[in-house]
């Protein structure tokens, strides 16, 4: 459960142009709720730039952004007190122990030294590094380094953590473990924004999705709804699929007659329940026999590809 009911962040016409003419974000307007949110987009979509704007490390060219109800432009320090950040790139000093590094970042986040060491111990235990925390990080595997990065993001008990590609470079088991950890954060009252281009990651742990492409918002909504809206309805009307297809196309639904004679209706962004209602009414109006009917949900990959190609 999220601790407060303000959105995790609200972007209003957020634009960032870099010298040289690169447009990283182009008028992004979105309100992202508390909970686990997936920020998805291809490489170069603007995810990392958005994180840097949320942290107040760079300023927008146009527009504004609020994080946890606070305007980043007027109080970046206050915003950072509420945030944890796990960058995509390697960012840990190799000649120190995980316990020292995480405790130091706890102190830098405002914890008193003793509390920082205690919290460092707790969060390293939480991420599964209890045994290794006093070892130099020079010998850490990629998975251990990713866990340490997550621990430093959590050490000061943030309201919101920004995770940039947390499963990058992990093997399948490490990836599953990292996603399980991310999923648990929600139960601790910590909101998560998970930036990734791996849509399966988002689908498995996030209850809200924000898709950006080329710095623009593609779509934003609850994960389940998005999957439904890219789903399909498949039905067997006793060989009269062509008649059904004509009628459904007339009502604005994309319908395809498959090789086995069945019809497949694509939701095309409509609520799957609304599509089912239209299909049911059309079948009844035409007096068609209904031998079978099934719905199929899309994957986020399909949603992303359909939305990106439709732009």
């Amino acid at each position, binding site marked *: 459960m999220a601790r407060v009911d303000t959105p995790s962040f609200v972007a209003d016409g957020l634009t960032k142009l870099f010298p040289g003419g690169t447009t990283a974000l182009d008028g992004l307007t979105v309100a992202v709720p508390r909970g686990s949110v997936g920020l998805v987009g291809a490489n170069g979509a603007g995810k990392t730039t958005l994180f840097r704007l949320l942290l107040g*490390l760079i300023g927008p060219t146009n527009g504004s952004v609020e994080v946890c109800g606070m305007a980043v432009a007027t109080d*970046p320090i206050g915003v950072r007190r509420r945030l944890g950040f796990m960058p995509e790139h390697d960012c*840990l000093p190799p000649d120190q122990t995980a316990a020292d590094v995480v405790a130091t970042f706890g102190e830098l986040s405002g914890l008193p030294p003793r509390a920082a060491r205690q919290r460092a111990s707790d969060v390293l235990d939480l991420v599964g590094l209890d045994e290794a925390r006093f070892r130099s990080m020079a010998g850490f595997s990629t998975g251990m380094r990713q866990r340490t990065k997550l621990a*430093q993001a959590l050490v000061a008990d943030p309201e919101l953590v920004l995770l940039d590609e947390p499963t990058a470079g992990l093997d399948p088991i490490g990836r599953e473990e990292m996603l399980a950890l991310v999923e648990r954060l929600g139960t601790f009252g910590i909101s998560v924004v998970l930036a990734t281009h791996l849509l399966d990651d988002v689908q498995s742990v996030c209850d809200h999705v924000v898709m950006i492409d080329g710095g623009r918002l593609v779509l934003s909504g609850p994960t389940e709804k998005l999957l439904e809206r890219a789903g399909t309805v498949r039905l067997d009307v006793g060989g009269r699929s062509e008649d059904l297809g004509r009628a459904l196309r007339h009502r604005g639904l994309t319908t395809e007659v498959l090789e086995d004679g069945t019809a497949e209706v694509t939701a095309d962004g409509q609520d799957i329940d609304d599509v089912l209602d239209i299909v049911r009414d059309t079948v009844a109006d035409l007096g068609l026999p209904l031998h079978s009917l099934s719905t199929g949900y899309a994957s986020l990959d399909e949603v992303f590809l359909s939305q990106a190609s439709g732009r």
Partner: protein
Amino acid sequence: MSGAVGAVGAVYDRGYRPYDGPRRGRGGTVAALFVASIRRALGIRRSWRQKVFPWVLLAIVTVPAVVNVGIGYVTRDTPAEGFSFITYREYVGVSSALLLFVALTAPDVVCPDRRHRVLSLIFARPLVGHDYVLAKVGAVTTIVFGFSILPQVVLFVGQMLVSDGALDYLRDNAEVLWQVPVAAGLLAVYYATIGVVVASLTSRRIVAGVALLALALVPSVVTGAVIANDADESSPVAVLDLLSLPLHLRDVVFLGHVDPDSPLGGVSAGGLMAAGMYTLVLVAAVAILLLRYREPDA
């Protein structure tokens, strides 16, 4: 069967405990970075190899004090009593040997943050660029100041103890108690700031160290050659000797004017020129640092 029958093992998932204790303000954050930098420079919580250099250097710079006190002890109640081969003013000059220390310490405190991209984690915390600059310059300054002062303390306390009257020695040398900290402070701020600014320009420690030594030594050699051609071996060009510049201020602190035997000795308003150049160098260095960390994650 033992009494353990029926007992079952338990695996405890301690889960996550929210933190509701006190939090420090921005000053606390800067202090934390300051302390972390000092720990790093002194090799604390690092391998023994990192600890060797600073402590060996401290021992080396303390040797003249120990020797001087030893001579004072051996020659007490003899005609040579009171002999001293190094004065407090000269001993502050030993601090310029600490330039070597700064050339190793400042890059070690600054460069890895950029090289290992730790800056992105640091600046995700509640601090800004000038907080970082303050903490890093402050840490290096504190260490250099400490390494300058400790040998002086050994010298002063030792001399006092081997003298005929400790209180008389204290009274006769009371002015040293402010002159040494002020002069050592001037040197520490100067070397530390220059060291940090050079280190901030590269992510490689070795490059930063060599660049700092070159920045200090090349102008020193060049100005030395120019002044050597001057008839009275005195020239305003001496203020361009970045290595020796703070030593002129040290002389002003101890003597009230620049040392007449120094390359600035025959220059009118030499002390003012040195102070002006000193200020100019520091202002330029701080400006570069603030600019360098204005957009820290870049």
